[in-house]
């Protein structure tokens, strides 16, 4: 019991220590960039979210701590400070790293299916649906004489049953 109590007391302390340590580590990764105006700052932040880190693949350059992401952030900062527009910076990066650096891919022959795929899927589904609907009334009249007779009989029976 006594030992357990001790652990219970220690735990919050340990947790606090962890939190302090890790928060310090994450703070250390944030670079400070200074801008002349709010517009440039906004462009910079939009760009670092839009550009993908080629080294770490599934992170944008704002999130990644990779050395290369840092370089790309610095370059982006430099270009934005020179007064280049968002598109100009994206073009600069694409010219060097390919369309891979964009989280917002352009329409090219290789990517056209990202747009056309769902559309074709819907059209195909609609066509199937239309055909099914068209088929149904035809089917309902497909009874031969004997079946027709039986149907009438059943309907009559049903009418009688519900009346009584």
């Amino acid at each position, binding site marked *: 019991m006594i030992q357990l109590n001790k652990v219970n007391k220690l735990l919050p302390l340990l947790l606090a220590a962890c939190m302090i340590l890790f928060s310090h580590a994450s703070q250390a990764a944030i670079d400070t960039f200074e801008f002349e105006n709010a517009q440039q700052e906004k462009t910079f932040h939009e760009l670092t979210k839009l550009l993908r880190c080629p*080294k770490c*693949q599934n992170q944008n350059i704002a999130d990644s701590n990779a050395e*290369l992401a840092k370089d790309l952030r610095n370059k982006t900062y430099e270009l934005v400070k020179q007064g280049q527009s968002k598109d100009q910076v994206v073009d600069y990066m694409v010219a060097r*790293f*390919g369309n891979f650096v964009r989280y917002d891919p352009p329409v090219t022959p290789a990517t056209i299916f990202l747009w056309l795929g769902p559309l074709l899927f819907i059209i195909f589904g609609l066509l199937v649906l239309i055909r099914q609907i068209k088929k149904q009334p035809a089917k309902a009249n497909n009874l031969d004489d004997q079946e027709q007779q039986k149907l009438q009989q059943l309907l009559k029976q049903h009418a009688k049953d519900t009346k009584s």
Partner: protein
Amino acid sequence: MLNKRRVLTLLVPFIIFIIGAIFLATPLLKGSDPSKLDSALIGQAVPEFTLQDIYDADKQYDASIFKGQKMLLNVWATWCPTCYAEHTYLNKLAKQGLYIVGMNYKDDRKKAIRWLKDLNDPYKISLFDKSGMLGMDLGVYGAPETFFIDSNGIIQYRHVGDLNNKVWNDKLLAIYEDMQ
């Protein structure tokens, strides 16, 4: 007749599935690595630059060194363990008479020179890209990378990762020999 048409319509989703499966399975079975990206510079000339020689800070080079013969441009650094692994193979290629230019990327000059002295220097020219300026223009995203440059100074291929006997014989030798 109706049955036949029905079978055909039912086949359509199956065929679409097969095509999709082939499309998705090919890269898996071929073992292609999604972390290896094609260079955006294939078919283009090596970008303009001015860089110092690694041994001699007064000696400067520009993009004209990449013209006149086909060659490899190897991007390396002393902080890169894979570069250490491939260095022996680079020495072997150099011995076979390949013209290899080295680009030391974001590194320490002293360490780099010691590396070349200790492990032998396979490079005809050694560029020192301290700031990573040419690396950025070449779209280098990790060392080692090797660019295949033809005699007109046009980049024909980029290999990401180390050069070794297997990858060279399986793939890269053919690319090198196809270049003019």
